[in-house]
């Protein structure tokens, strides 16, 4: 019981100090979990991150679940995940309550109009950063363009294609292309 409580508190604290999510939290996790508590090693932590990044859902939460599981099984995973959720839940509930009451003020509206411009830039930066690792060759570029077109022009299509269908389709196409490639490479030998 004491162990679970410690897990909860540790991840609640981590959830409160990680801005931006994803890789921004790696140094914090390293300090809290590897250096201070010795719950896991740096190598394992990196593996959890790469798996967390390529499995569905929020990366930070995936990593928390992994470590909780390693520490105390299924219970540990649930407790770590809940701990991580606590901070953001409380903070955003407060902000949402604030916005509901103040959103109609011109000052707040002007501020958010300015902020939205900044958000555009942040997204452009994120795309540029991810581009090199994701769009690695011609076939990947073709997937990018196809998904972009289907997603961007979905209101104009006769049948609406849900984003989930695009994700599943892209995964299948990717698997098909790589398996064919490895087969071709084997036959070439």
């Amino acid at each position, binding site marked *: 019981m004491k162990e679970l409580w410690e897990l909860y508190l540790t991840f609640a604290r981590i959830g409160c100090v990680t*801005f931006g999510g994803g890789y921004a939290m790696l140094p914090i996790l390293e300090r809290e979990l590897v250096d201070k508590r010795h719950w896991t090693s740096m190598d394992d932590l990196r593996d959890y991150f790469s798996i967390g990044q390529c499995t569905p859902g929020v990366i930070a939460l995936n990593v928390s679940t992994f470590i909780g599981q390693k520490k105390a099984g299924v219970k540990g995973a649930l407790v770590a995940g809940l701990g991580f959720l606590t901070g953001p839940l409380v903070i955003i509930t407060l902000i949402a309550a604030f916005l509901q009451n103040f959103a109609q003020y011109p000052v707040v509206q002007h501020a958010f109009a300015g902020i939205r411009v900044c958000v555009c830039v942040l997204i452009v930066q994120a795309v540029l950063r991810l581009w090199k690792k994701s769009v690695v060759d011609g076939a990947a570029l073709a997937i*990018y363009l196809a998904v972009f077109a289907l997603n*961007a022009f979905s209101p104009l299509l006769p049948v609406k294609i849900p984003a989930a269908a695009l994700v599943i389709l892209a995964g299948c196409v990717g698997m098909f292309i*790589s398996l064919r490639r490895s087969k071709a490479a084997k036959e070439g030998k």
Partner: protein
Amino acid sequence: MVFLRLFYEFFKTGLFSVGGGLATLPFLYEMSGNTGWFSTADIANMIAVSESTPGPIGINMSTYAGFTTAGVLGGVVASLGLAAPSVIIILIIAKFLEKFRNNRFVEGAFYGLRPASIAMITVAGLNVARVALVNMDTLAAGNYGEFFLWKAILLGTAIFIGQRKLKWSPVIFIAIAAVVGIVFQF
């Protein structure tokens, strides 16, 4: 039953958004159109809030949408819905960690998933640009001269250059953008 619907919609988002953070955006835009729980401008605002507060954007958005539709409990239910697929999938993978890491089917799927994910993030970026940088209403009115919001485009360019040159945290740029927005009446 609004709580079930909240849980279901965010569970779906959690299940299909691979790559974390911004990968939830296409699903949030879809949800905005299907449910009307929040507007596309709300999503853009929430991205900024998420960049300036702790916690991943997906969790922040689910809390926000849940709270505005069904109060505090709604926020909790929506966030649990988003988190549930992560927890379930990771628990399964943790059992087969080694096999999962070097599976060529998994690797192959990611070859396709990665470009798909950033393609949809690009579209989400365009959706934000549509409310932030241009005025779509002028197109309908036939008033093309005021289509581009020049003040906004100028600010965007400045922030883009600033981010490349200075390695400041996004929070600082968001704060600057808010002040510029107030001073110059965006």
